[in-house]
């Protein structure tokens, strides 16, 4: 008894520095954002308290809703694109394959590449005049299919989404492969002894056993997509004509481009609320109480 008391005190003591850092650099700024969101402030002159005016304005701001719509598209593309594709490839790679390491490295490469490099490279590939895609289409005689991928409001968002999906497949691939390798060989062997084929083993045993990992991946995916910023900032800067603007980008432009710190903070608060809500809903749907 005495011993365990002592130990828990020790744990608290050990956690304290981290907690302190976390409070100062994560919790406090969030609370500050809440505070600033009630102000009209250009970051320089005196703050004026305006109550919920920023939020009222925000709810009528077409551009904000446009950015939220785009953000939802990113979330959908990530959850429905990255996770299933990564899972599929992981299942394929989870066998005694020659050159497994090679494939894994290839798959993981986009994750370790700098986002700026990815954005610029894909931007060049999408270029209308001399980009890889259009040059290819024109070479094989499909001139009609060549598009102004990033420069046309119809195609800009789908084009960007392809890059987003491509960039992060590798991350989930590695997570899923790690989970798959943790499934005890005996379980699978027992299933095979009972006469289960590949299909049944995958559906009835492998997938349920890594389901927790899948949920974590989905949540990571959602929170990552809601924060998405750098790729779009470099690749399109939200353009053309706001067609690829997401919430974080809109918040950044309002705050630091137009010096509306109060309004920008109000956007951050909404992003915060929206993220919490979405993750809450998803964890409920997938049947796990993570929050």
């Amino acid at each position, binding site marked *: 008894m005495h011993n365990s008391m002592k130990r828990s005190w020790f744990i608290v003591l050990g956690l304290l520095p981290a907690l302190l*850092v*976390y409070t*100062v650099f994560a919790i406090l700024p969030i609370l500050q954002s809440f505070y600033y969101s009630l102000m009209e402030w250009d970051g*320089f*002159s005196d703050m004026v308290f305006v109550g919920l005016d920023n939020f009222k304005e925000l709810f009528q701001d077409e551009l904000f809703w446009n950015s939220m719509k785009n953000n939802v598209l990113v979330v959908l593309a990530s959850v429905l694109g990255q996770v299933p594709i990564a899972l599929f490839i992981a299942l394929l790679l989870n066998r005694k394959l020659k050159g497994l390491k090679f494939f894994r490295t290839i798959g993981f490469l986009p994750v370790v590449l700098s986002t700026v490099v990815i954005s610029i490279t894909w931007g060049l590939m999408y270029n209308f*005049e001399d980009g890889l895609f259009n040059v290819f289409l024109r070479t094989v005689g499909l001139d009609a299919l060549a598009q102004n991928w990033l420069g046309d409001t119809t195609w800009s968002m789908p084009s960007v989404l392809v890059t987003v999906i491509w960039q992060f497949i590798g991350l989930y691939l590695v997570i899923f492969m790690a989970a798959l390798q943790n499934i005890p060989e005996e379980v699978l062997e027992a299933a095979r002894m009972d006469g289960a084929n590949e299909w049944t083993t995958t559906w009835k045993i492998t997938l349920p056993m890594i389901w927790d990992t899948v949920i974590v991946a989905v949540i990571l995916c959602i929170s990552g997509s809601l924060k998405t910023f750098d790729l779009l900032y470099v690749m399109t800067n939200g*353009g*053309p004509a706001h067609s690829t603007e997401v919430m974080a980008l809109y918040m950044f432009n309002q705050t630091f481009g137009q010096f509306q710190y109060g309004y920008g903070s109000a956007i951050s608060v909404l992003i915060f609320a929206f993220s919490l809500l979405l993750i809450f809903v998803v964890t409920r749907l997938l049947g796990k109480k993570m929050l």
Partner: protein
Amino acid sequence: MKHVMNSLLFAVLLIALTACGSGGSEQQSEASDGAVELTLWTDWTEDRPENTAYKQTIEKFNQEHEDIKVTIEAIPHDQYETKLRTQAAGKQLPDMFRVWPGARLEPLAKGGATLPLDPIMDTWKDVIPESALKAYQYDGTQYAIPANISLTSLIYYRKDMVADAGFETFPKTYDELKALITALNDAGTTPIALGNKSIWPLQSVYISTIADRFTGSDFLPNVLSGEGTFENPLFVDSLAVIDEMTKLNAFNSDLNTIDESQARGKFIAGDTAMHFAGSWAIGPILDSIEDLDNIGVAPFPSFAGGEGDPSAIAGSAGGAIALSSQLEGEKQEAAFTFMKYFYSDPLYQELVKANIVVPVEVEVGDDVPAVYQEANALMQGGITPVYDATLSPELTDLINNGLQSITLGDMTPEELAKKMQEANESAQE
């Protein structure tokens, strides 16, 4: 995990920043050998001839003044203004700092962060023209002195391509320019290299001058004070020029996905006959094009029915340093001495050697490239306001994105003018 990493990184950054901050103020208070120390914040981080000229002049000042020592702290351009404003909010400005004109200087002057230069203004009387000084005035008081003039609307062109299209001299009117564009297109040459991904070129380079040609220079101040309206047909006509040029295929088809320097690259590579840009393009063009005799610089064409001065070009005065309003006594004296020394002939001569357009008359030697001389001569017609140096950030954002929408056919000139007027009215309420 990523989040924690971010917070940690942020913590390290913050510590670094505050450490720098306190370091700076220590430097101010302790004068090592009795000399008055002045700290100057700039964004001269890039290795450009212009920045070298500034830094060398300050070095020379320090050598010639034993009792004053100016220390430079350079901050990258893109972070500079955010940092300046944040520090100003905390009343922690350095003794001297680089500022930008018009709408960007206004909050600092209004908030009383900058020191009026009235006591030393005689130094520049009849030396720097009023039109250049005006950019750094607020409420009739001068707060900074410009070092250069950044013209935003020049037309660079390849003489051989224009001649091949049947034009012996560069078009003087818009109708002739349209004929040139059509002729170039017929010959299979892309007429104009434009990179509008960063959305300011169409506004800064094109509209600033085109709109002035249509409406005259009184238009902007009138509209902003509520006497005029953006829905003025003349302003709408100027926006319609962009629409018309796009429909004429005047630009490269990837105009909305490449940035300004990529567009300049196209022109330099000889892919297009023209490139519309500011005086900032002179240096890179001089550096990269071998056959310089083939490059010409022309002013914007005139527009039929316009009310503005057809010889003026949009431009703004830059390279200005303002003083902190907290400077007193000995330090204020020292700062004034520095300002008088810095903004004088030797600096302007160095800048001219670096092919920078300056607001004062400087004797130009024969070795100065023709492209620069032509651009410099165009400034003599007078300068008109640049839109993003005059409009509020909100209106700037509207017109930037609106012009992009016009090139995409998503918005008409009338709709953009209406939107801008609505925003203008709600800002005045």
